């Protein structure tokens, strides 16, 4: 595991942004060359939403993987921001291309359709997280407040998974898979919080209490910029 962590030092976080861009351009190219079937709008909507959910789920994997010794913390901000961008593009595609800016229909959807409302809750909870995903915001808010705020990603993940399950005529195996993944990843945190409280902490208390992101940021902020 240490060897993996060691070799990951050479992979900068911007690789994640690059991956996001590659996935996006791949989709654009497929649409432009007519490779997404007879109903490209539905396909693009589906793929953007799915990518958003996949990156949210990937972000939720970071902490449990650290418990197992794999440290991906410095990629988490990039994972979250890529997730937000896919979700925002998904929403934009729905409003502009799918609904064609038919505001009365959009308004009706936003007030009457549970799956649209749930999806919108997901987007709105990700919005403040995206805005505060920078070191300045962590300093301004204070690590504790910032960490609490970013717990909103749990709400976004549940909303995204539920939205995906509700969107179709039937519950698909694929949507249930992501719902299960979110349940497991959030359940693991709950389980650890309970069992962790009974066991004496293995690390000094001040180290466990600080939000993960702050510690990684601390390193980044202190470290002189060599590159």
């Amino acid at each position, binding site marked *: 595991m240490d060897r993996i962590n060691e070799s990951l030092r050479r992979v900068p976080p911007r690789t994640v942004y690059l991956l996001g861009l590659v996935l996006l351009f791949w989709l654009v190219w497929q*649409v432009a*060359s*007519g490779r997404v*079937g*007879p*109903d*490209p*709008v*539905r396909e*693009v909507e589906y793929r953007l939403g799915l990518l958003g959910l996949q990156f949210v789920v990937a972000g939720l994997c970071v902490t449990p993987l650290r418990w197992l010794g794999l440290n991906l913390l410095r990629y988490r901000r990039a994972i979250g921001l890529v997730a937000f961008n896919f979700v925002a593009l998904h929403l934009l595609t729905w409003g502009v*291309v*799918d*609904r*064609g800016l*038919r505001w009365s*229909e959009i308004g*009706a*959807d936003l007030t*009457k*359709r*549970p*799956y649209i409302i749930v999806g919108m809750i997901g987007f709105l909870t990700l919005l403040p997280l995206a805005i505060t995903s920078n070191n300045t915001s962590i300093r301004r808010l204070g690590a504790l407040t910032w960490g609490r705020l970013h717990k909103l990603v749990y709400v976004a993940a549940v909303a995204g998974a539920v939205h995906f399950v*509700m969107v*179709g*005529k*039937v*519950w*698909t195996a694929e949507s249930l898979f992501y719902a299960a993944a979110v349940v497991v990843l959030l359940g693991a945190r709950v389980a650890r919080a309970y069992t962790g409280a009974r066991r004496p902490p293995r690390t000094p208390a001040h180290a466990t209490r600080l939000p993960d992101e702050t510690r990684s940021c601390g390193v980044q902020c202190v470290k002189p910029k060599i590159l």
Partner: protein
Amino acid sequence: MKRSSFTSSKPLTWADVTPKADFLNRRQIMAAGLATLAAPMLARPGFAQTAYPKSALSTDLPPNSLEDITTYNNFYEFGLDKSDPSRLGGDLKTDPWSVEISGLVDKPGTYALADLLKDAPLEERIYRFRCVEAWAMVVPWVGFELAHLLMQVGVQPGAMYVAFETLVRPEEMPGQESTFIEWPYREGLRIDEAMHPLTILATGLYGEPLPNQNGAPIRLIVPWKYGFKSIKSIVAIRLEAEMPKTTWNMLQPSEYGFYANVNPEVEHPRWSQASERLVGGGFFAGRQDTLMFNGYADQVASLYTGQDLAKDF
């Protein structure tokens, strides 16, 4: 023996006036290169046998491409994805095929498909098609009026409804391994809907036999109702006194009613039915308004006089 259209006395069809290349996907044409340029000439003799009379009930709208119609299908017998039926439909054997006609009819029995089609007045019907999922297509079916068949088998006075069933054959229809639908797929019509001249049994598409993914070898088409009413690969037709159970209504009665008439004012609980996306128009084609009874209100609205369509959805 194939006859050339020059010697055929039958009227020309849509397929005759449009080279096949035109309704195939552009990508295929590019891939095929020069070979495609020659195709219209080579293909022409083959089209003569597909000369079906045009129906006055056809729409003037341009039909979707054959690729659109045969790769974007909801046919859960083959899987939930719209590409599953075209990918996995190949194993379905549609010959031999028979349809059991039973219930309140004078001549019940299990009829071979060939016997059903022997005197059937097949014609081309270009219909609008509207899925309950708010997408739409225009499809050039080949078929004959269901009323023709019902009159041949003799409908008895007490018959108020017609029930239909799709084939159950999990070894050829992999989607039937899943049990969330209680197979067979079932649909039904009120007798006056079934006897309406717009209601057809379709056996072909673009002048050729129905591809498996579109419900081969024989399916129902009721153009003023949401697509799920137009049951595919029919093996049983029953005339009954009571309203039959129908698959989507069994699955989710609050969302899918027995009538399922296309109606922009009655929304699906989870989405609006006021507009629809015409499949095949590309990424920026936008939406169009959904029409009452899918544009067939002049012909069918009178069937529902006195009914509250918000209640009988």
